[in-house]
């Protein structure tokens, strides 16, 4: 297994995609700081809490899932796009090990951007003169930034599966954008809208709204902030409800299992 892992890490040597994803996420604080400066928030005492929390919200809601989705599709679909799949799957290696190694590589690269974003945010915050600096704020933010990558990572197996089934980059990316958009708009509202549109009544409507509350793409943010309400960053504690975490973990486990089952039977080539 260590050889397969080494091979999977080596495949990304010199590849721009992981760095683009990491830089994209880490650049968010810079962009946000620039917007803040331009609108003169900095001069009226823009607080550290708001800066760090908004950065994290944008990472967890929009930029992170999309860029990590792109990275996942790159890792899983590239074998088909670059024509290396025939050789890879004719190599005497368990297909399960290949899937496992790819998920390990994806995990490492998913953890990196959150940490990088934190490392960028702190000196940037000091430079632009945010108000209310305290070690307490940093201690609040650091585990959340560190955890953000892991939580987003847990949603990625479905993107990996779509990448392998479609054997291209576009459809998994479109899926990621759609899935992320639903999280941003609010899955419960969307569920109710479609239920009424289709004329669904209780109890189907009830099930739908329940499912919407555990919509995987919303969960990383809910877990990190301990609340689903906007701008209520300090209202909850980290992973205030273990249920959300278990749902996310279940999503991940089912996703990985589907990847393994698919690849076991996958026909490589025409």
């Amino acid at each position: 297994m260590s050889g397969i892992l080494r091979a999977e890490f080596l495949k990304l040597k010199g590849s721009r995609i992981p760095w683009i994803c990491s830089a994209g996420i880490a650049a968010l604080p810079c962009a946000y700081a620039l917007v803040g400066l331009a609108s003169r928030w900095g001069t009226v005492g823009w607080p550290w809490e708001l800066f760090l929390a908004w950065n994290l919200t944008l990472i967890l809601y929009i930029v992170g899932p999309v860029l990590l989705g792109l990275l996942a599709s790159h890792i899983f679909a590239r074998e088909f796009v670059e024509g290396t799949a025939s050789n890879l799957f004719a190599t005497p290696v368990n297909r399960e090990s290949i899937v496992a190694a790819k998920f390990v590589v994806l995990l490492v690269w998913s953890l990196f951007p959150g940490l990088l974003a934190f490392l960028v945010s702190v000196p940037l915050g000091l430079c632009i003169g945010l108000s209310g600096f305290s070690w307490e704020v940093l201690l609040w933010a650091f585990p959340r930034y560190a955890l953000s990558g892991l939580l987003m990572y847990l949603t990625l197996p479905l993107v990996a599966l779509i990448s392998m089934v479609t054997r291209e980059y576009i459809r998994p990316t479109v899926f990621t954008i759609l899935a992320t958009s639903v999280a941003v708009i609010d899955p419960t509202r969307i569920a109710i809208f479609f239920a009424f549109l289709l004329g669904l009544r209780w109890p189907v409507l009830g099930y739908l709204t329940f499912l919407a509350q555990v919509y995987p793409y919303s969960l990383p943010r809910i877990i990190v902030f301990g609340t689903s309400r906007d701008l209520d960053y300090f209202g909850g504690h980290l992973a205030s409800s273990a249920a959300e975490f278990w749902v996310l973990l279940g999503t991940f486990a089912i996703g990985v299992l589907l990847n393994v089952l698919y690849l076991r039977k996958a026909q490589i080539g025409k």
Partner: protein
Amino acid sequence: MSWNDRATPVIRTHGLTKSFGAKKAVDNLDITLRRGEIYGFVGRNGSGKTTTIRLMLGLITPTKGSVEIMGEVMTPGNVRALQRIGCLVETPGFYSNLSVYDNLEVQRNLLGVRDVKAIDEVIDLVGLSAETRKKAAILSTGARQRLGLARALLHRPEILILDEPANGQDPAGIHDTRMLLKRLSEERQTTVFMSSHNLPEVQQMITRLGIIHEGRLVEEIDYEELRRRSRVYLEFQVSDPARASFVLEEKLGIRDVSFHEEGKIRVYEQMDRASEITRAFVLEDISVSRTFVSEENLEDHFLRMTQDEPV
């Protein structure tokens, strides 16, 4: 059963069939390869060569029939069977961001080959030493084929399954590949199954030839027949082949001769003496009912066999 025995089948397909919808890409294929053989699998584009290779490697599952690799039935991801095989499928793909060396390093890690020098060894074998640091993305087609071959050889496999290995190579590259495969067959007793749509390219190295057309194996030609058919010859149909043989050998000194059904004798040397040979037969009371110079070589034969409409 000893796999070192040259008579033991190394690759065997039983009624191998693969359908895509209503179309049979491979139809009831029975092929047996023995240790050290170089089997040329020749057919036109779309005849079913690559599908057969994918079936042999377990990349796709057969609709009917099976493939055995050294007694192991091939199924998708059968590690035990795949350990014996080095392969090159169609135009080989590589990680474009990696160099030639790193692409081989990926394969070395996947295969669990501990010896780092194995990479330099295969690079030397296929003649890629000057391009070790080049990115795979900028390699020529010929160099990509050679890199694919290097990747296939990395774990010193007992079996090589190669799909059009000469594709895109220049004449020198084709020659080098030919010499390399011959050497591997002779020195390591590597069994080689190679497909091609270009018969002259493979004719000089193979020990057996299979012609595939529309998914069916239309003819298999062994080494002797291959050599015979690759040569131009004079054919006589005579009343008494035994006496004719005596005349040819003792009176005319012609020894490169073969005998066939219905009194047919083929002469492979001194072709300019056709009238002299006929005269000698007549003088010995051997009646000659037919004489001709072969016009069909192996390539013509292949083209005829793989034509959709008989001429």
